[in-house]
């Protein structure tokens, strides 16, 4: 320490002024999390049954996964909850907000992805999963739609079909056939989201009221051949990078929602998130409380409910824990 004697007169107690240790550092299949709160639940308990869905990305193939390319950083003047709720249950906005981008890049015509404001076909082709301690999943169930927005999906479909039997062995038939390769939106409460298929991994850093710095990476399975990995990095940047054809639609929407909610009159009103309220249930073979289809506000409700539970609790003891409709094998 420079000039410890001369400037501090030797009176500083260095043991009291070090870096604050991170109370808990734990990892799950390559994802490392830190927490400053020694009383927080363990990572395994915190994640709960969303692990069953996370494994569809992290553990489908024996080689595991990697983030590739540089970090893509962008500043949004938005409340951090808007991008999270936009992605956690994002089927409703696709056909309208991204109409131009979908027309430009969609190469696979799948009913589940057609559903938009005007087109009701395929509304039931996926599911919205919540009731998992604030974590959420949006899933198509066709085993290939993740690659519907690539200029040439064929090498990806070939890769999926060449390896699907291996994934059946590792994860069982339900996940291997219905989820692996499908478009999935996975939200780890509160601010981490990953989209297997479009293959991006994203963390939102709140930077004060109405400000978010969004960090995105492309992600690949390590068992994929290098040319496929390269196509993923390229396509992730094309669709959801800083000049991404899709991402460039979302940013202004999120900023405008934030701006318009600031006025006094608007702030007196409740947010309406009732779409498909009361239309969720257990679904054979899948954990969680599940609403049919990619278009609903089922996930958003659970997101805000978790937010309310956490902000209203004085300590972790007061925070309820729920993993609804557990599978017997997950007990």
């Amino acid at each position, binding site marked *: 320490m420079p000039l410890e004697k001369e400037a501090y007169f030797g009176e500083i107690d260095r043991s009291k002024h070090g870096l604050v240790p991170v109370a808990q550092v734990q990892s799950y299949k390559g994802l490392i999390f830190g927490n400053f709160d020694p009383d927080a639940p363990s990572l395994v308990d915190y994640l709960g049954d969303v692990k069953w869905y996370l494994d569809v990305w992290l553990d489908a193939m024996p080689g595991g996964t990697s983030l590739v390319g540089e970090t893509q*950083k962008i500043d949004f003047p938005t409340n951090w909850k808007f991008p999270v709720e936009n992605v956690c249950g994002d089927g409703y906005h696709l056909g309208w907000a991204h109409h*131009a981008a979908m027309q430009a890049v969609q190469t696979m015509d799948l009913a589940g992805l057609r559903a938009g404001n005007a087109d009701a076909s395929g509304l039931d082709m996926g599911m919205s999963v919540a009731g998992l301690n604030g974590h959420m999943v949006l899933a198509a169930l066709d085993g290939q739609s993740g690659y519907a927005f690539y200029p040439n999906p064929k090498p990806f479909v070939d890769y999926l079909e060449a390896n699907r039997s291996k994934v059946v062995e590792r994860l069982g038939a339900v996940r291997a056939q219905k989820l692996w390769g499908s478009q999935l939106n996975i939200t780890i409460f509160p601010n981490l989201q990953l989209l297997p298929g479009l293959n991006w991994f994203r963390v939102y850093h709140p930077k004060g009221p109405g400000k978010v710095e969004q960090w995105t990476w492309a992600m*690949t399975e390590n068992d994929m051949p290098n040319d496929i990995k390269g196509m993923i990095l390229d396509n992730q940047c094309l669709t959801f990078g800083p*000049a991404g054809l899709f991402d460039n*639609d979302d940013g202004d929407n999120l*900023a405008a929602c934030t701006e318009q909610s600031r006025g006094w009159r608007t702030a007196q009103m409740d947010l309406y998130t009732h779409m498909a309220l009361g239309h969720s249930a257990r679904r054979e073979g899948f954990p969680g409380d599940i609403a049919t289809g990619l278009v609903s506000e089922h996930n958003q409700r659970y997101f805000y409910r978790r937010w309310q539970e956490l902000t209203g609790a004085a300590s972790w003891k007061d925070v309820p824990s729920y993993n609804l409709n557990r599978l017997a094998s997950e007990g």
Partner: protein
Amino acid sequence: MGIQENHELQHLLDLRALEDALYREARLLDEERFTDWLDQTAEDIIYRMALTSRRFRKDRAPPLVLGSGYIFNDTRDRLALRIKRLQSGYVWAEDPPNFVRRVVSNVEIVPTSVAAEMQVYSVISIHRSRIDSQARSLIAGREDCWRKVEHRWLLARREIRLDHSTVPDTNLNVFF
């Protein structure tokens, strides 16, 4: 007039024509005349903006295995794809249109070993007046290759270096 003088005159005329081309493309883009802009590019254009990160000078970490990735990694077809999207009438962030003004400066034109190609350095500043009262400013350096084809200079390659490690705007619906 001697051959030497002829060459010098031709070189000066080329410099003028290239500067004009840079200003013209800035104006075409400001006016959203995207198709006219594309017409000023070569069939085999490579238009790129690499992702970068700020690192300590001492950082000797090896380059990433798959490369950095690109914010723009566009062929002519892909530029056309972006233009198709922008002209679709469904890009809500651009409706009402933003006021966009480009300033191009620090132009430096260097002959290459290929007679019909020039290396062109420039700086572009893009000012966007967006959603009431929001203004955004983007700065980038550019290193181009321009090629003379039948008396016209066409943009054949552009490497854009964006001087923001965090993009300070909600979208990059703009060409640099």
